[in-house]
């Protein structure tokens, strides 16, 4: 099971600012190990953020995203006490979902 994310969501002036830290290798597949063998690609492909069952962010990611990625976005409508859920899926089919309460 992949490691947990850290999600922080703060409501301000009718908008919710969400900051997400994800623990992921984000291996590009371009690198080689000490023995000269290519290190297989392993990266997050799909990121979705949902609020009250509604998708507020959906992103297709590739290998250009750094290791342990940090994502920040804002959306309209959320308020204090609501839940926000973030899910990622990587190219190996591994998945991780975490939830946070908007402050």
């Amino acid at each position, binding site marked *: 099971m992949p490691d947990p994310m850290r999600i922080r969501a703060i409501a301000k002036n009718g*908008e919710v600012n969400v900051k997400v*830290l994800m*623990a992921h*290798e984000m291996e590009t597949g371009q690198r080689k190990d000490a023995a000269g063998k290519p290190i297989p690609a392993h990266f997050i492909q799909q990121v979705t953020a949902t609020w009250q069952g509604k998708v507020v962010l959906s992103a297709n990611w590739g290998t250009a*995203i750094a290791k*342990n990625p940090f994502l920040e*976005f*804002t959306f309209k409508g959320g308020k204090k006490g609501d839940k926000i859920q973030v899910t990622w899926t990587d190219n190996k089919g591994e998945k991780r979902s975490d939830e946070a309460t908007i402050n």
Partner: protein
Amino acid sequence: MSSIKLRAVVALSGLALVCAAQAAQKEAAPPKKAAAHAKKPAAAKDPVAADFEKFHEIMEEDSPAELFEAKGAEMWKAKRGPNHVSLEKCNLGLGPGVVKGAYVQMPRYFADAGQMMDAERRIVYCMVTLQGFKEADLAKKPFSKGSYLPDPVALVTYVAGQSRNMKIAVPQKLPQERAAYKLGEEVFNYRAGPWDFSCASCHGEDGKRIRTQNLPNITTKEGANRAFQGWPGYRMTGGLMHTLQWRMNDCFRQQRFPEPGYATETIADLLTYMGVNANGYLYKGPGIKR
């Protein structure tokens, strides 16, 4: 959704080992001259250092170190090792299971072990005595590399995070602790190796640097504080989490000293010297490094 920001990690290309040449100069000078040199007022902040600070501020807000804290927290509570017990009974100096504030009060003397121990040394001690891990196994690959993360690193990061915004108060009550400070000071000033280096060669006066990294002067309170802060640290180059154990080990490597043993008492003494010098400052928690 109105804006999306992604942050990429930028690796910095290095310059030469600047400290080496400067240090050689310093050691050649008679002690009196060196002392006068140290008294010179600190030069105005150079633009590189100022930019680094800005960069740190932005990065520290959402430091990936938190990911390791979370991992360490889970590990702390999990039943692990041959004995299948958690570390929740581990005594970090403030009583069994007390984690809050423990990091800023270590190294300290532990009567049960009869030794000086810093945070990582104590955690290794607990992993061995409580959970039944073998010390030799833990010492085999003690530092982060690639995607490999040693257990003590995550655990130290968690423990350190539990001292965030607390005052650094490395104890000096016991005679053993005062002796450790003296020993640490001696190790700090001990010149040896093929380059005739000591820790003090780079960290004994203001304004030294290696490549673009400004080095703290650990003989001063502010300098020792600067050195204490930010560890355990997330190294953006390679995305690795490192503890002070690694920092000490790598400093000795850079001095071309023989490699110190993992989590030995010598390192604990050295960290006592640094920690006591930094006493009184607020510890900001696990940080981020270039």
